[in-house]
């Protein structure tokens, strides 16, 4: 009961009912039932501030950026570069350290290629962990194959935390980069990134953090963290799809070759030789996703207006409330029980396949994700076929969790 009383008070502080009015999709029905959207770790819903900004962009600004001589091109360029500043300010980084990408996946691929080209040689080592999303595994496997380098893994514990002592043992003079997630997409575990960075930096090893699951839930200060690379996706941060961000320290970016060749990334092209532009444009070949780049700043403005502290508090209460209710259901086992978690709860029900649960929840209007969540090595470690994952955003409510629990009980009774 404790949690409920406390949460109601916070609920008022956040004013979830008013916030929900900003998200038109939350008021739709699926299979005749009011939608309950608990798949926020896959992608978040968009507030009107974002939806309207997309509309406004095409009605008032649309034009190609940079090198334009005319009014609209300058307007688009200004907004595009203003957005870079907003993103930079949000992360406490300089705009020239902010590179627009298609998403987290492309950001990691960019580093794996360009950093790899500059700094990774035969026999070198890259450290990742067993709880990475495939996007933070495959690019490094590709790099290691290309360079004959070696990929090392930080193992995880039964409750879904990184084995930090093992990690420290992996760090060696051969290690060229540590690439781990800030928050696990499958488990919600918030990893001890300060400790990871400190240990790696003590041996002069740079660190890349996959922040896709962190940025929507907490304030990230790249300067304070002293992290070398940090990346996230716009669509998980209530912004558009097709836009992501790579933060990189200038000292690295300046030494890295381009990822792709084309327009924007060049200084001068002759048929014999091309000189490359300075970062960030060096890494932004071709016409970028101008609309999404500009609108991402509106999404950041929106969450900052609400306040990430308030968001984190409400989401944490939702997590505790859901965890407590789920633990009471017979046969439910929560996968990922680290003490520090974002609002992600992954679980399995004894004797029932996660996809069956997902199908029957969907019929009751509830959107969850089932399967391996693009983290097959982690799922294999737990020796399970996958999980049911409910992931909450600040616009979710305690009432929705109550309905979800009821629907889950119904699904279990049908499947048992």
């Amino acid at each position: 009961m404790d949690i409920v009383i406390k949460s109601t008070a916070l609920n008022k502080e956040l004013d979830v009912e008013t916030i929900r009015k900003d998200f038109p999709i939350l008021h739709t029905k699926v299979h005749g039932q009011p939608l309950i959207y608990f798949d926020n770790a896959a992608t978040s819903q968009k507030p009107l501030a974002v939806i309207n900004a997309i509309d406004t962009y095409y009605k008032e600004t649309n034009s190609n950026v940079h090198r334009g001589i005319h009014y609209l091109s300058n307007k688009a360029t200004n907004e595009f570069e203003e957005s870079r500043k907003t993103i930079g300010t949000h992360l406490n980084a300089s705009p020239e350290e902010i590179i627009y990408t298609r998403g987290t996946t492309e950001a990691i691929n960019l580093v794996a290629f360009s950093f790899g080209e500059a700094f990774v040689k035969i026999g070198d080592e890259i450290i990742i962990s067993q709880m990475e999303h495939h996007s933070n595994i495959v690019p490094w496997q590709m790099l290691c194959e290309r360079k004959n380098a070696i990929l090392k893994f930080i193992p995880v514990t039964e409750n879904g935390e990184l084995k930090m002592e093992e990690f420290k043992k992996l760090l060696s003079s051969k290690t060229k980069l540590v690439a781990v997630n800030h928050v696990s997409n499958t488990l919600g575990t918030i990893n001890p990134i300060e400790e990871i960075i400190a240990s790696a930096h003590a041996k002069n090893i740079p660190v890349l953090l996959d922040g896709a699951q962190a940025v929507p839930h907490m304030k990230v200060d790249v300067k304070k963290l002293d992290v070398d690379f940090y990346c996230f996706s716009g669509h998980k941060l209530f912004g558009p799809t097709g836009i992501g961000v790579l933060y990189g320290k200038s000292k690295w970016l300046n030494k890295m070759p381009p990822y792709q060749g084309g327009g924007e990334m060049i200084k001068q092209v002759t048929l014999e030789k091309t000189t490359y532009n300075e970062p960030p444009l060096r890494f932004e070949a071709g016409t970028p996703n101008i609309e999404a780049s500009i609108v991402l700043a509106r999404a950041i403005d929106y969450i900052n207006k609400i306040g990430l502290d308030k968001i984190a508090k409400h989401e944490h209460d939702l997590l505790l409330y859901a965890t407590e209710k789920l633990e009471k259901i017979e046969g439910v086992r929560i996968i990922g029980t680290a003490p520090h978690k974002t609002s992600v709860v992954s679980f399995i029900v004894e004797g029932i396949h996660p996809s069956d649960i997902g199908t029957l929840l969907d019929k009751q209007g509830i959107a969850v994700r089932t399967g391996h969540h693009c983290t097959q090595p982690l799922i294999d470690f737990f020796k399970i076929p996958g999980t049911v994952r409910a992931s909450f955003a600040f616009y979710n409510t305690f009432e929705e969790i109550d309905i979800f629990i009821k629907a889950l009980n119904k699904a279990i009774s049908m499947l048992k």
Partner: protein
Amino acid sequence: MSIEETENEIVEEFEIFPEWMEKYEHIIEIGNSVPKIDEKYKDEAHEIKGCQSKVWLHSELKDGHIFYSADSDAIITKGLVGLVIRVFSGHTPEEILPANLSFIDKIGLHEHLSPTRSNGLTAMIKQIKLDALAQQALVTKK
């Protein structure tokens, strides 16, 4: 009974379940009565790819007719494969290959037909048809 007759029979059967819950309870029931695949066939070669859950399918040719057995670790998926098996089992490759399985749409399960759908009904149907094609080739060769 022809493929079409079985399809019609299934459509009639599902008509008495207008509620999603009853419909899925029925699918689960079908899943529980699927002709059980011999354990030795539950291997990589018999696994249908494209499903979030594991599905194994085995077919056997008897006098030019194909008979199926299957299993899945997910019961709804097993029910869906059960429905398809019920329609196809005991038929010749010539009968199986052109069937368009319109019953799936009629009983309101078309949402499971999307190619990326996690329970992979589309993958199962594709596998059954490929298998029928292979069996047909075998018969012609004989």
